[in-house]
């Protein structure tokens, strides 16, 4: 009977994507536990008190997925930090006075494309990485998390590491495309940065993907950026704009602020480009990264707020 239970447990763990060390450890501990219980209370009672193998496998899968997702998010941020430093160093040390020809390099348009990547991708990596870190720190003491929440955390980490890799690739393409007119030492710096920093980003990307393997049977919703920054969004001056229900208002506001910030350096065209790219990113990545509140939740909260107001009015 013990073998049958262990077989069911093994099959359930395998079904839910728990393999490797976690799988073997759970089965070994379950075997030890059941053998000890059988010796004391008999087989039937041992099996009864042990509980459902499927339920137990679900708890193990949730624990493994939560643990891996947190580790992947932390690792992503800490690998992105040196990428940010290297990017800043290369950006600031770019030889001034270089007469760039962004549209006339060896491959037509490559310089322009790479330049756009150099400007926008680090911003995506930074925002996603910070949001991923913020979320895992905020939820560090929570027990196993819901599948939707874990998916959101992994999405933030994955977007951050992918944007980090593409930033370095853009730098590399730009340097190669313009190698005739930029200083040799800068080109070497870019190549070294790519060679040193892309492999760890690939590793954390794979770790994030691996964290998605266990199937988590825990239901529930994922938080969003309005939960992450609740202190900000609950301030009276911010709250009255009701950004959670109207996230596009928030996107437009952030877009204006960013455009105003880059305008003095990049000119009107750069400011408009920044604004447009932010809105595109908000449209494409808003839901996966939790920048836009789930429609059902927003309308539900609107209804609740409306009901509370009506109750208050009646009371008055």
């Amino acid at each position, binding site marked *: 009977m013990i073998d049958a239970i262990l077989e069911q447990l093994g099959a359930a763990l395998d079904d839910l994507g728990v393999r490797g060390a976690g799988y073997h450890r759970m089965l070994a501990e379950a075997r*030890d536990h059941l053998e000890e*219980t059988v010796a004391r209370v008999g087989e039937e009672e041992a099996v009864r008190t042990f509980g459902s193998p499927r339920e137990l496998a679900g708890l193990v899968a949730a624990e493994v997925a939560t643990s891996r997702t947190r580790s992947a998010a932390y690792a992503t941020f800490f690998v992105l930090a040196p990428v940010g430093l290297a990017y800043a160093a290369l950006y600031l040390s770019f030889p001034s006075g270089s007469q760039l020809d962004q549209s006339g390099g060896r491959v037509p348009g490559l310089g322009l494309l790479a330049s756009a990547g150099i400007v926008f991708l680090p911003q995506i990596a930074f925002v996603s990485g910070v949001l991923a870190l913020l979320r895992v720190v905020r939820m560090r003491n929570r027990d*196993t998390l819901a599948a939707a929440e874990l998916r959101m955390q992994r999405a933030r980490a994955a977007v951050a590491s992918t944007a980090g890799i593409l930033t370095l690739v853009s730098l590399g393409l730009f340097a190669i495309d313009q190698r005739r007119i930029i200083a040799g030492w800068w080109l070497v710096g870019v190549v070294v940065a790519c060679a040193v920093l892309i492999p760890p980003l690939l590793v954390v990307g794979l770790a994030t993907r691996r964290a998605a393997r266990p199937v988590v049977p825990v239901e529930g919703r994922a938080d969003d950026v309005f939960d992450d920054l609740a202190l900000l969004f609950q301030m009276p001056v911010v709250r009255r704009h009701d950004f959670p229900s109207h996230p596009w208002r928030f996107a437009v506001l952030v877009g204006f602020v960013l455009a105003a910030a880059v305008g003095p350096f990049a000119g009107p065209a750069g400011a408009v480009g920044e604004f447009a790219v932010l809105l595109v990113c908000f449209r494409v990545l808003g839901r996966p990264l939790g920048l836009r509140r789930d429609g059902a939740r927003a309308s539900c909260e609107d209804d609740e707020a409306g009901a509370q107001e009506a109750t208050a009015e009646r009371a008055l």
Partner: protein
Amino acid sequence: MRSKVSAGDVLKGHVDLLLLAALEAGPAHGYAILETVRERSEGVFDLAEGTVYPALYRLERRGLLDSSWVEATGTRKRRVYRLTPKGQAELGRQRTAWDGYVTAMQVAIA
């Protein structure tokens, strides 16, 4: 006769405290931890036995426990858990919080 309490209701949220307290006396394996909880509660806290292992994994991940395999009887291997200093501190913190909660409840329902 005392009624048994399932992990799904009152116990939920306090399993960590029970497990940490059970390990305060010294290292133990999963079955022994459950026995300690059961004995100390005079059979009231009857956890679904298998579910204790994911909880132990979670506590270990948080650095509150550590564990290692030891040889048991015959060819059996057994995972033994022990409190870490961080776990000891967390136990103290959770005990204080629990005492405060119980005192407040007693006053509130008196």
